[in-house]
């Protein structure tokens, strides 16, 4: 049935791994062979269905026993985590130290940076499903995420910095829904903006910087919400984007 196009190539077509020239040939073959085209379409639908069924797992809050299992060390203490916390506390977060000793204050800034960095690390490498709603539907995206997160959000415009909006997605965090906007520049470097409700009591903070596993995060609390911008484009570049985001959001968030 597929004398000219091997079965494996039909699979490779679905997975987007054919060289461009061969991809076009396979496409032509499919146009002339509807039965194969139907199979290929069904396989492609399967991939979509798998994502539709299981991607929600990515957004679930991580079970604490599993988080602990990543830290329980060969070494006696999760040295790096402790060192990171000490470093952050030393740089001015002592005021939040109360929030560090328990799971009760998940949105304390330290957690905000960590969670934002994890969400960045999880979603930014996705080649086919980096976002749930793409930038072509930006108005819908912003309206939807604003409604779910509970504040009027805006997707900052980073075009002056060379980054275009790719889209966004809804995540779940320990304080409720989380919005993640993703941007990409011409060489496909990605940054994400992570927004969620902050723990009550933290009204305003200045910019903070954290480096989590090589991801630079600039984060701040404004009113009831925490914002974190993450990326691996160098600390200075992230800071410029964070400045741009902050200044653009002041009017929208009713800066106090």
């Amino acid at each position, binding site marked *: 049935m597929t004398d000219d196009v091997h079965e494996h190539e039909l699979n490779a077509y679905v997975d987007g791994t054919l060289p461009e020239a061969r991809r076009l040939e396979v496409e032509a073959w499919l146009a002339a062979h509807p039965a194969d085209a139907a199979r290929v379409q069904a396989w492609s639908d399967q991939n979509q269905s*798998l994502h539709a069924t299981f991607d929600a797992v990515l957004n679930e809050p991580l079970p604490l026993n599993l988080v602990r*299992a*990543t830290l329980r060390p060969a070494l006696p203490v999760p040295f790096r985590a402790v060192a990171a916390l000490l470093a952050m506390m030393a740089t001015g977060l002592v005021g939040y130290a109360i929030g560090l000793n328990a799971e009760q204050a998940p949105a304390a800034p330290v957690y905000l940076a960590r969670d934002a960095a*994890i969400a960045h690390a999880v979603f930014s490498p996705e080649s086919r499903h980096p976002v749930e709603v793409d930038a072509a539907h930006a108005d819908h995206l912003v309206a939807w995420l604003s409604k779910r997160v509970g504040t009027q959000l805006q997707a900052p415009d980073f075009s002056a910095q060379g980054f275009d909006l790719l889209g966004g997605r809804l995540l779940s965090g320990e304080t409720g829904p989380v919005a993640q906007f993703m941007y990409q520049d011409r060489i496909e470097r990605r940054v994400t903006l992570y927004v969620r409700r902050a723990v009550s009591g933290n009204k305003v903070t200045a910019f903070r910087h954290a480096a989590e596993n090589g991801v630079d995060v600039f984060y701040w609390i404004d009113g009831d919400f925490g914002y974190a911008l993450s990326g691996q484009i160098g600390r200075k570049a992230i800071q410029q984007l964070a400045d741009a985001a902050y200044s653009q959001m002041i009017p929208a968030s009713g800066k106090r």
Partner: protein
Amino acid sequence: MRARPDLIEHLPRLRRYARALTGDVTRADDLVQDTLERALVKLDLWQPGSDLRAWLFTLMHNLFVNQIRIRRPRETVLEDALDEPVSGGQMEALTARDIHEALARLPEVQREVLLLVGLEQFGYAEAAQVLGVPTGTVMSRLSRARERMRQMLAGEPAIKLKLVK
């Protein structure tokens, strides 16, 4: 001191894969936990600079295979045991339940390949490395898995759902 690679950022995807693989929340998270424990013990064997994610999935695969052996010592895994009726009708919108059931009926070796490639976006060579089989085996399992899924998913709605329209 040697820097420890961070496992936590791989946690969401390990959980997604385990959930799809086992079809069960508790069993999936147990599998993830076992994988992490194994990873911490064997971390010295991981080559810095190589793909940590692929390595973690390899550990999970090995644990999963062992579990299957223990759970069903006598049952052999037949790659082409099922022959499902094909409705010939158009594909209805698939529900999560349809997907779960079809995956559960897929032989494990095919399920793994389908999920690694179709859900986790591993390349064929990477998937082969994770599973410890030649790339050609990955290709043929993938092909069979997709055809099997297609038959089951095309067949199921006609059997299970009465369309009210």
